[in-house]
């Protein structure tokens, strides 16, 4: 098996690796495998996972209901001196609550917000909260001393912007004129409002009554409580943006060798460019290992004829899938944006359930 020397080289001077990609391509596995690989090389690595499979959770020594940073025992893995791996599982709701606790101007404001029905609705239901909280968790990790390297798994996304654009969208929502307008009581409006704003406010009031939501009062309270925290949120979003644009950050778009997924990966890279972010690599996960030749079984006398026929038909099945895979890879090669490195990772043939499995996957990660 190939030594992953080239991969280690590409990661040597990085401080942060972010794995992005659509659901079901193995982002969590790739994140965990990379983190383990880097740790075994003698670095102090923290990895954040999103919704790992139960066996992967076990392999990392994590529990479903615990979202704290846990040391991963590397005892039997032959790690170099100084190696350390810690892992955590993202819990968006808890991160959001911590954020409120940190930035609330007073204990009373904090309690009011945590109990508020608008906040509860926002923190549970608003699409993008998990994305934003992954970013927030990243900031928490990056400010903790004593780690050389952070590897970040992200929530499944249909578009790259889901995750990377989350802080900006959240800020736009919280800082929008709409929220200011709603939050300001009639006598305490900040800044000049146009007639249209006032009209909109009146219409919104009517809308609130007609729809039966009677939410405006609540939203107003929420925004009033929240206003003291806006600066804190803005500062966090700024810091997250800087971290992602840092030259020591590597953004990896993970995909599998299927036509649709590869088209999606290329769209991700383009969307990143539009946000002034750069994908450093596209990692194609779960590639099929090369097939053995049919020659040796054709000659063997030990194999009964019926079994030989089945083996050959199975090889033909797999060869067809490999052709399909290769066509997808060829399309990727043709469309690969300049400056984006292509990484391949080979399928293990089973779901990873131990650190040894993760290490085996990491060993297959190579420059294509």
């Amino acid at each position, binding site marked *: 098996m190939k030594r992953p020397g080239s991969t280690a080289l590409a990661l040597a001077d990085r401080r942060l690796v972010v794995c992005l990609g659509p659901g079901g391509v193995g982002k969590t596995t790739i994140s965990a495998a990379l983190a383990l690989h880097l740790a075994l090389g003698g670095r102090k690595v923290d990895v954040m996972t999103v919704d790992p499979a139960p066996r992967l959770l076990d392999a990392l020594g994590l529990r479903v209901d615990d979202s704290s940073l846990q040391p991963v025992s590397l005892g039997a893995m032959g790690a170099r001196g100084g190696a350390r791996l810690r892992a955590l599982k993202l819990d968006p709701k808890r991160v959001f609550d911590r954020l409120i606790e940190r930035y609330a101007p007073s204990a009373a404001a904090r309690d009011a917000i945590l109990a508020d029905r608008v906040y509860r609705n926002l923190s549970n239901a608003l699409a993008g909260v998990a994305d934003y909280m992954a970013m927030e968790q990243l900031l928490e990790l990056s400010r903790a001393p004593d780690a050389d390297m952070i590897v970040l798994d992200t929530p499944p996304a249909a578009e790259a912007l889901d995750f990377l654009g989350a802080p900006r969208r959240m800020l736009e929502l919280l800082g929008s004129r709409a929220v200011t307008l709603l939050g300001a009581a009639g006598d305490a409006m900040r800044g000049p409002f146009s007639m249209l704003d006032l009209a909109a406010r009146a219409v919104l009031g009517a809308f609130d009554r*007609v729809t039966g939501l009677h939410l405006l009062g609540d939203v107003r309270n929420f925004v009033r409580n929240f206003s003291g925290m806006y600066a804190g949120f803005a500062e966090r979003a700024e810091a997250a943006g800087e971290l992602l644009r840092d030259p020591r950050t590597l953004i990896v778009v993970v995909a599998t060798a299927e036509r649709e997924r590869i088209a999606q990966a290329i769209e991700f890279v383009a969307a990143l460019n539009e946000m002034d972010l750069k994908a450093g690599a596209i990692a194609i996960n779960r590639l099929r290992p090369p097939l053995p030749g049919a020659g040796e079984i054709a000659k063997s006398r030990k194999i009964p004829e019926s079994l030989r026929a089945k083996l050959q038909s199975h090889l033909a099945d797999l060869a067809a899938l490999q052709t399909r895979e290769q066509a997808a890879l060829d399309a990727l090669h043709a469309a690969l944006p300049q400056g984006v490195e292509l990484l391949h990772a080979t399928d293990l043939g089973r779901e990873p359930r131990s650190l040894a499995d993760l290490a085996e996957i990491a060993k297959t990660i190579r420059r294509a």
Partner: protein
Amino acid sequence: MTPPRLIFVTGKGGSGKSAVAAALALALSRRRPATLADLDRRGSAAGMLAAAGKADALETLALAPRAELKAFIHRIVPLRSISKRMLRSRTFGYVTAALPGLEAFLMLERLRLIAGTAALEDRYAVIDAPATGHALELLNVAGGIRELASTGTLHRLAAAVEDFIADPNRFGVILTVSPEELSLREALDAARAMRETLRVGWIAAALNFVTAPLFSAAEVATLADFPEHARLAEARRRAGRAAADARRALRDAGLGVIELPMVFAADFDHAGLETLCERLEQGLSQP
């Protein structure tokens, strides 16, 4: 299995959701005219149909939350001049900021209307929905809105949407599952949540990528001199058994299971879609 008027196809990423939605729409369009609506923002299912050569009795539709919100505001603000002005201004921002979840809810309301039209016109609708997590959030939003709005238009609409989701003649879910631990667990959890919390009345599983074990353990053992071939044969045997285990777990959970074969072809094109389509047709014709 008598299919409901509208089938909502969801599943874990990588379980073949869009291909199943496309094949299902194709299968139903051979019974009655059908509509395939994409909710996944990418139009993946419609794209697959187009690549396979679209059928005559099948139309495709892309649903956008923004358009639903627009239609709703026109409906609820009777004065056209005001509603138009709201729509031109930043009021969209105002409304969505004030009412998180409203866009998702209006999407559900649209599905209810699509199913109503389908019943009137005797046709079917298939929705290529978001992946399981987002799909559950979407379906849950009606209950949330009904609790938030104690009276009024939205309360009535939310109650109507909840009835729609629970009506097996109008609404059903097909969960696509690949025979792997994580995918199976996610499908079982989703089915439980859909039954217990959302009272969905019609749920079936489409177990995808099913292979026959092909090799027995004894046969694998005779391949000791050929480790590479033994490894492949063993992997195939395990995949076959994993599919059988998944089928049992899904049936034990009380779900109807339609098995879809792994399509071993160099190109998943018209023939691949046709294979899935035939199996879905057979599955839906079972009692």
